[in-house]
């Protein structure tokens, strides 16, 4: 999966080594390999595999909070979740949240990385400061932002009104059309430093000669970015993109602590919906919660596979 390009090239070599060895002591290698895999496999099968099966099993029954009996209902829960009307909007919101957040994180992260890659006094300090939001625990970050967004204490609105950036206070968390952007703001605030720092690491080894050569060829600043910087950071960008997509898609803490999915359903993404179904809504139906969670998995897998397909085809077209 999504290894960097360099990683793939080297894995070819390691396979070559493995081939030459395999003729001599195949069995030892197999035994050693499996022995080394055992702890990881035990962890994954025991702590992820088994619970997943258990959740699948619950999703085929009707399991209510506190009720011992759980009658088998087959795929009824899936049918009702898919037809009830809550699932598809939540899926749409999850995509909206993920795509917009990740896109903004990439843009801000890239711009910041480009500036940090230049030589200027105080660069080290700035770089450390930029890292701050990512290092802060999400709980800390959300508590702070709720304080800033709050309509009573009014910090953010006060500043924006005083600075004449807005005329009237904005209801950050209470208006359906602002709640999702507010959640995205907090998500981006926490997530963009990850891009800034990884992309900066990808930019810094690009030799100055390449830029100079492009300059001599008459390339402007935009062309230099497209033809020199971008290809240079591409492998790094793709790894960061994949990880950030997974993290954003499964984001629960930030949204739950910020809006609990509200107002109405405006910020109810799939992870929030799964939790609501199981513990908040109606009959506290654990089975329906499990259905939401089960349905989330293939969506994320498809998303990551698509991303990976895009990365691979792009790399091949460049090669």
């Amino acid at each position, binding site marked *: 999966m999504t290894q960097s390009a360099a990683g793939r090239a080297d894995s070819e070599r390691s396979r070559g080594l493995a081939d030459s060895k395999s003729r001599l002591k195949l069995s030892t290698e197999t035994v050693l390999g499996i022995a080394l895999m055992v702890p990881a496999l035990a962890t994954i099968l025991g702590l992820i595999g088994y619970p997943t099966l258990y959740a699948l099993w619950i999703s085929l029954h*009707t399991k*209510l909070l506190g009720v011992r009996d759980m009658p088998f209902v087959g795929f009824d829960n899936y049918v009702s979740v898919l037809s009830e009307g809550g699932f598809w909007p939540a899926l749409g919101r999850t995509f909206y949240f993920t795509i917009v957040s990740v896109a903004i994180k990439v843009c801000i992260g890239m711009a910041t990385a480009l500036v940090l890659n230049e030589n200027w006094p105080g660069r080290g300090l700035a770089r450390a400061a930029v890292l701050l939001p990512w290092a802060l625990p999400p709980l800390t970050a959300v508590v702070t932002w709720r304080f800033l967004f709050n309509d009573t204490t009014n910090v953010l609105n006060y500043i924006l009104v005083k600075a004449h950036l807005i005329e009237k*206070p904005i*209801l950050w968390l*209470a208006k359906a059309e602002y709640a999702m952007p507010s959640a995205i703001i907090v998500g981006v605030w926490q997530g963009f430093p990850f891009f800034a720092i990884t992309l900066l690491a990808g930019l810094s080894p690009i030799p100055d000669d390449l830029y100079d050569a492009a300059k001599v060829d008459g390339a402007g600043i935009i062309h230099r970015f497209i033809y020199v910087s971008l290809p240079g950071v591409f492998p790094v960008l793709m790894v960061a993109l994949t990880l950030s997509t997974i993290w954003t898609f499964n984001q629960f803490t930030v949204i739950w602590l910020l809006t609990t999915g*509200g*107002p109405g359903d405006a910020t109810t993404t799939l992870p929030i919906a799964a939790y609501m179904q199981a513990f908040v809504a109606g009959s*506290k139906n*654990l089975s329906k919660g499990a259905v939401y969670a089960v349905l989330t998995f293939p969506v994320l897998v498809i998303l990551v596979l698509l991303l990976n397909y895009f990365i691979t085809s792009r790399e091949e077209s460049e090669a």
Partner: protein
Amino acid sequence: MAENVTVNEVNDSPSSAPKGLSRRQFLRNTAVVAGAGLLAVACEAPQTVTVEVPAEQMVLRMWTTRFFNPNINLHLNEEAQNAGREIGFAVDVEAIPGGFQEFAAKLSAAAEGGTLPDIFSPQLATQTFMRDGRMLPIQEVWDEVGDGLGGWHPTAERNFMLEGTGYMLDIGFAPAFMHIREDLVKEAGFSLPFADLDEMVAFGLEYTNADENLYGLGFAYGVSDDLMHLQPLMWAFGGAAFNEEGDITIDSPENIDALQWYTDLYTVHEVVPPAAVNWEGGGNNQGYLTGQIATAVNPGSILAAVRRGDTPIEDLLDKTYLAPWPQRTAEIGPQAQTEAGQAFGINKESNFPDAAQDVLRHLWSPDVYIKMMQMGQSYLFPALMGAYEDPYFSEDRWNRQVVENVVPIMRDESWPATPAPWTSMWLTWAGRACSRVILDGLSAAEAMKEAHDIVASAREDFLSG
């Protein structure tokens, strides 16, 4: 001993490291920290009992919520220990943090894992737990406690008895009452109590000044409604969520009128803060304490904060008047709502049912119980009628306002139906009906129909299971 050393090492090494740390130094430090941690894990992991008792002593486990006022927890803890001492038990009382929803997740995990404590409050799942045979019937204790302190309030009997048998002891009610800024009402030329709902709205219109972020009425419209707002209004309009036979009547014309009237305050009269549609639980608390709103309906936590002085407004306590929702018509009269859910029962699978009952007897004995009510700082009002004679309730100006005007008329959300698992589920959907009208432009009738259908399907889930 070893523990302390480890903590110091762990705290010092990463943060006190010099600035330009080399990779080697970093890794060495990391290794030191890691080693110390491993040591700590190895030494510590097997010890799981914190209560300082001889290893042989039997332990009763009890879960309580973490009240906003920690003194209630301290008192409960201390008295539970005292009760245990008399019968040779250690009582391990855990004050669980988090909201109702997080608690529901924890409760359901513990129920599945078979690790429910001996004594606990199932909160939102109370009816389910009683009916599913998870709670031990404790009629004898119920009667003894009732006899000791003037009998149970009818609301406690409705909610925690099943078919004539007592299952759980109510720790007290958290009635929601309206906090009203008497000074502002007078300045605007009105007097208290409001004659009816219309007069309250007239005050709201008079006082509200949106440019200054000042609002006459501070009512909640989203998930944080918790039935404190819409439910009493439905009663005031002559409706109810259920009828006496237990049928769901959420979409009745009276209820639709109530929702229409209530959402008009937001959409037409604009006398409530716009953010009230997605206030977290503390939105109205904060609004009242900062002076943003002149009225707020809430159980006693706002009053407690006012008493504590957590507000920039001078003498806010003296400026505060407590009342139920005003009446709509004289025939129906004012209405009040109680927050349910704080009643303690015994796990049917407990190994020590007798000891657990002794602990409950002690906690609900007159002296201990009355002191608990005092610790509640107007958040808890007695479920046992005799406790109202205590000077704390009969003499304090604000408590008297609640005892005289709110407690006699308060009801639970199931009223007039017999409480059932799905009747308490209605709680989530009242606030949602409000936000559906305000945010999604549904008509009041459509929103109530939606809530009706959801509660009906929840009932279906329970009856079919």
